[in-house]
């Protein structure tokens, strides 16, 4: 019987294990240095904020793994001998695999700043980072966060929940400028301004971090020469594949483990998925390294197919993502770039008072709907996925906007205002269709 060893028990590794079990009788072992059981990385913030206990972030009860014959080893892989197909572990005996899946995730970026390894300076990725943050944030009266992305805003929310004021340093001229268009970032910045204790510093970069006599951070300086006293520094300038322990082996590595479209690596019977995988050829508009929950899951599904005898290329469908910035929910379907592309046109609707915004992008000539960023309104994934599949026009999307709404019952709806504004801006006469049972418009 084939023996599959998976290194890493995050969403990618665990999805692969579950799907292999579903399709086969192979022996499966998952090794993790981070935690005994699979947990939801995206939920770590809620543990710090007291919304949940750590065990609540574990999607499966312990019995699940035994029942499905997925062996879990809580140990650290020190080296891998690809020729002998052997993993050396720190404490337990060696593992001899037939197929190996590397799902080793990422680690927070550090760009060689002076003082970046002082006490009280950290990123947020792993369970250990959460524990470090619990210890590091004790007694802190001022925190600095460097890097304005999803983890940065999460960390800000976490610290504010403990009444720790945060100075948030962002390199770009707006929040999450590499991803969000100006109007969208403005909305998030307005939301942030409502939360006391949070100061956003745009176009500000970290120069160095200074420590006190105990080796603990006491201040930072910015590139413009400003000094900010602080006892905690969060480094949230992205993550990088956690592959240092594999460098120097025969495995081809660039920033991440280089993979073919089917997620196989340069070595036979070795696959890489999730955050640590880097596609040799990029996949359409997608980045060569995708560090998102959903893509980790999809890669896990894909590699399971291949390993179970159905060679399959990673084919991730239409882009989607979501996040929550303090109290504002964000979803996106299709592509909305931070700057409009040449052949694209956009339509933005913003609620006059509330933090609600819809940002539609479509093709200038064909009017084909390309993507949407929506804030403060929930939209139905199936419906948008279907529109993207069928290359629906922006007019079709507008007409059926009511059916795509996923907000809870009784919520105020704004489709009328949105379509009226669209009609006015583009001189159209779209008639808003009444809400249909959503499956009907998929049929």
């Amino acid at each position, binding site marked *: 019987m084939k023996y599959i060893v998976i290194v890493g028990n995050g*969403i990618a590794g665990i999805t692969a294990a*579950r*799907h292999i*079990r*579903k399709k086969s009788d192979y022996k499966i072992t998952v090794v993790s240095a981070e935690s005994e059981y699979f947990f*939801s990385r*995206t*939920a770590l913030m*809620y543990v710090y*904020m*007291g*919304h*949940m*206990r750590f065990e*609540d*972030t*574990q*999607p499966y*009860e312990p*019995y699940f793994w035994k029942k*499905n014959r997925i062996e879990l080893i809580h140990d650290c892989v020190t080296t891998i001998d690809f020729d002998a197909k052997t993993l050396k572990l720190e404490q337990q005996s060696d593992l001899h695999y037939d197929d190996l899946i590397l799902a080793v995730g990422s680690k927070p970026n550090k760009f060689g700043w002076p003082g970046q390894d002082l006490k009280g300076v950290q990123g947020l990725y792993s369970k250990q980072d959460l524990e470090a943050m619990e210890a590091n944030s004790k007694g802190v009266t001022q925190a600095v966060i460097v890097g304005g992305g999803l983890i940065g805003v999460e960390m800000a929310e976490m610290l504010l*929940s403990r009444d720790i004021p945060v100075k948030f340093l962002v390199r770009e001229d707006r929040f999450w400028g590499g991803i969000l268009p100006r109007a969208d970032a403005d909305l998030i910045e307005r*939301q942030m301004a*409502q*939360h*006391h204790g949070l100061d956003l510093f745009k176009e500000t970069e970290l120069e160095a971090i200074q420590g006190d006599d105990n080796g603990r951070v006491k201040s930072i300086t910015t590139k413009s020469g400003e000094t900010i006293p602080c006892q905690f520094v969060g480094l949230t300038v992205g993550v990088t594949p956690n592959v240092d322990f594999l460098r120097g082996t025969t495995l081809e590595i660039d920033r991440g483990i280089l993979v073919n479209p089917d997620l196989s690596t340069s070595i036979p019977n070795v696959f890489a998925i999730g955050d640590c995988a880097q596609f040799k050829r990029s996949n359409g508009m997608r980045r060569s390294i995708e560090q998102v*929950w*959903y893509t980790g*899951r*999809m890669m896990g*599904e*894909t590699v399971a*197919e291949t390993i179970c005898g159905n060679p399959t290329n*990673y*084919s*991730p*469908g239409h882009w*989607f993502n*979501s*996040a*929550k910035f*303090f*109290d504002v*929910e964000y*979803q996106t379907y299709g592509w909305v770039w931070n700057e409009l592309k040449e052949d694209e046109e956009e339509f933005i609707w913003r609620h006059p008072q509330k933090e609600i915004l819809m940002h539609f992008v479509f093709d200038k000539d064909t009017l084909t709907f390309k993507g949407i960023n929506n804030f403060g309104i*929930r*939209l*139905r*994934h*199936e419906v948008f*996925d279907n529109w993207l599949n069928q290359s629906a026009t922006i007019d079709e999307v507008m007409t059926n906007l009511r059916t795509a709404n*996923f*907000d*809870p*019952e*009784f*919520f*105020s709806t704004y489709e009328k205002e949105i379509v009226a504004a669209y009609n006015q801006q583009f001189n159209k006469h779209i008639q808003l269709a009444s809400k249909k*049972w959503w*499956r009907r418009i998929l049929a």
Partner: protein
Amino acid sequence: MKKIKQIGLIVFLFGLMFFTSLPFFGKYNVSQSQIETLLTPQEFENIGEELVTTVSGKEFTTSKGLSQEIIAIYEAKNEELKANQLWDKVMWTLPSAFAMKIAQATNESGVTKSTWIYFLLTFGLGIIGALMYILPDLVLLGPAGIKNNGVYFNTATNRGWIGIVTFVYLAAFYIILYFYPYVMVNQISLLDPIKGWFIEGEKASQWFLYGFLYCIVMIVMGVKMLIKYRHSKYQIVRTFSVVFFQVVFAFLLVEILPVFGLPGVDLKNAWPLDYDFLFDWNVKSLLESGNFGKFAFVWGIGLSLVIIPLFTYYYGKRWYCSWVCGCGGLAETLGDPYRQLSDKKIKAWKIERWMIHLVLVFAVVMTVFTGYHTYNEMNNPGMGEKEILLGISAFDVRTWYSFLIGSIFAGVIGTGFYPIMGNRVWCRFGCPLAAYMGIVQRFKSRFRITTNGGQCISCGNCSTYCEQGIDVRAYAQKGQNIVRASCVGCGVCSSVCPRGVLKLENGPESGRINNNPIIIGKDNAPTLNL
């Protein structure tokens, strides 16, 4: 703002302390003439003399002390009568009710004289303090949105010491209310003037105190609920609805109807939650109260057999459990801070299914027995032993049901255990009406919770805050609709979801139960049923 909150807490605790201390103070002098007027002729014949010699002329400082002596005499006499088989002389009033009658009439404590002052010191301070504690959250919690910060750090909501103290207090309150109501004579007297608004001169009962307190607690905690979930119109509308049905249907109408000589029925209370519907006294009182009584009887049957299943088909059981029901109403207001304490393990689900359906069976059996007895009472006047069916007495069955399910499970455990097992202990493990509607909801309903394509990140907020202990995430992460008998549709899973994944929906039955769900993402995504 934080100061106001702190002062509010202190004020509230003072109110609570005054309220709790009332049973320990008082003055009760029972005179001979009072005994003569209060007792029925039968009672007077049995124990009048003994009461006069032992109780009157003696000053009691607590209603408990007085009542216990009265009860001892009452029970001893009954034992003696039963031993001598003098059945026509045996007294059938509950001993505690008999003692209450005397204690209430002879209460000379300050509460009966300066009732409004005492009312302000107890209810007044409690309400003002609670509101001072709650209202600053409008500012302190920041912009509208889910604010569960620190829920698991707070000893009141993480089964810490405040939670345990709350549990002991609530459980003790219910035990006293159901089994030793005479302890609360002073507290009941607080409401005599308010009871008097409905029927002049009438004294409040322990049930009036309970109903009034229930309404106050639901209104005050409803305000807290409204502030906490003010970003969600679903939660706002729902909270207004449960509070409205409690205050108007369960309290005001029940008090007002008798003013017009009509039976004080709670028209929203449906069998089998309303387990005494077919008890002989209930059926008699309804059928003997003219057209309205007859209407109430027919309404009760129609509510249980037609409206309940029909509405559950269209909207799921939520229309009752978290929009109308009193038990659900208390759980959604007073109980909201405890919702995360419900057990999500699969083992708990197994126990739940056995337990709630056994209670439903018990309720049905009990109703058959009492219905049989009631039918005989009304239609077979000549029949002997009208209550015996299959060799078992209907009285015994209903006594056991009232004690085990009606009092212990629904009250002491159902509410007492809020701070330990979450706010829906009764609704999840014990309510026969919930079991009945659950069967409809699971097999024949348009209601489901839809999951939004591939957006779930398995964070677990939904499961954590499900008061019914449903592992919502297990479905959401597979892209599977949540169709569960126990879901009361409170909508909090949807409210706390950070990615907009969950939506409570009523829709066509086809495709409602998707056991082989597709999760959007990878092309041709396979099933994820593992």
